[in-house]
């Protein structure tokens, strides 16, 4: 299990969640942030930290935003497990959004 960032973050990227993540597993895209599904320890610190309530536990993602579970995973598919977001300035990779064909 892991937490997932949904629609609310798109073009917002407040980043409060980043400072609250104990394992530093919230990475930046160009338009939104992504939680690494394998690095996340499921502690829940990010959920209340988000000012736009864009973060959900993966089993509780609301209808209509479920696609973010897969696109969060897809974001890291080629990147692997970088082991800490603080080492990166700027976007880590191209955005992955629900409904888009990966690879296009």
């Amino acid at each position, binding site marked *: 299990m892991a937490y997932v960032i949904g629609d609310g973050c798109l073009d917002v990227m407040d980043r409060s969640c980043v*400072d609250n*993540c*104990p*394992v530093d597993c919230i990475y930046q895209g160009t338009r939104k942030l992504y939680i690494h599904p394998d690095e996340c*320890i499921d*502690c*829940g*610190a990010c959920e209340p*930290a988000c000012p736009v309530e864009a973060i959900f*536990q993966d089993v509780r993602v609301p209808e209509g935003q479920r696609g973010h579970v897969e696109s969060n995973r897809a974001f890291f598919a080629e990147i692997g497990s970088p082991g800490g977001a603080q080492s990166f300035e700027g976007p880590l990779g191209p955005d992955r959004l629900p409904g888009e064909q990966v690879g296009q």
Partner: protein
Amino acid sequence: MTPLRHVAVVGAGPSGVYTAEQLAKVHGLGVDVFDRLPTPYGLLRYGVAPDHLTMKRLTATLEKALLRPGIRFFGNVEIGRDVTAKALRERYDAVVYAVGAPDHHQLGLPGEELPGVLPAGDFVSWYSGHPDAAPVTGLGAVRSAVVVGAGNVALDVARVLARATEEMAATDIPDEVLAELAGSAVRDIHVVARRGPGEVRFTAKELAEFGELKNADVRVHAMVDELAAAEGPCADLFRTWTQRLPVDRPRTVHFHFGRVPTRLAGPGRVAEVFMASGGAATAQPRPLPAQLVLTAVGSRGRPVPGLPFDEERGVVPHTEGRVRADAPNREYVVGWIKRGPTGVIGTNRADAMATVRTLMADLAGIPEDAGPARPFDDGELEAAVDWAGWTGIDATEVLRGTDRGAARVKVGTWDELLAAAHGDSRGITAFEKG
């Protein structure tokens, strides 16, 4: 050349480690982290439930932080016993207290002193293998346990009591604890909340685990109207469980709402919990049988020698992390001794960043050459357990885990911890001798 500034951090739990990491990594300071235990990680090691294995993965993050250049670990050093607060003030450019909230609130009820009644926090310390924990015995005579409280600690102790022996064997609990739990005769675990099903302070994620327990069924004792009207993710779970068909499992976890314990009764040791109904119900609730009562009604900070203390809130008063804004002493607080026992582990990371901002702003205001810091030399504190000592304990625990198929099994006494830290662990010797 700019003299290197040195900061002392008291407490090697998550908030202390995050503070040290910020100071060393972002600001390039030297940081000495002290802990009264010979082991780092604080409540991650001695508070996070042993079956929450995912959360324990945070250990790797904290280890990486403590291994940064510039950070040293001084375990088995208690401030006030081995080193005075004054010495820390004099030797370091700043001192950050990250000492947590180790004391437990009590119910203040008649019968609370009976054998079989203890703070849930003491039970947590016991199963976590804390070297100061009093052993829990007699679980073989407990058929019904009552847990008073509506927070996540109540859920932790209820879940540990509910789990099967083989589930707990895969965790890091000490062998003696596993043996005691294996002999448990517990059939019913009653979680008693003063609040209604919509007001409990459980984290929904942790409550949801009860629906997945292999060894226990869940029963919700709530009034139909009250449950129907309750809102929030916890209430959703409770409603789901009321619709579940009973399953035959060795144990049952019961959730009660709007119940206020009034009296614990013996004879000799606790046998019953009397309650009043706190909600709209008119009928007097029947007492619950209980041979074990765990009270999970909150924890609080303990006064730190030499620092002011807010008795009411159980915290050290501060302004943006700085203790005593008007005094020349550069003393700071972070974590639960600063905010009280709230938030999840990650909350401490943002909290540490806030305290470090204040500290760095203060340091910027003093001359670089004003009384350079005189941090302790390696080996100067004779009884201190350094990082190498901790790795000795760590290795011993990992080795013990191999016999049980667990990632580690904790060393739970002072003697064994110090022996392992000094490299003469019986476990390692036996292994080397083959």
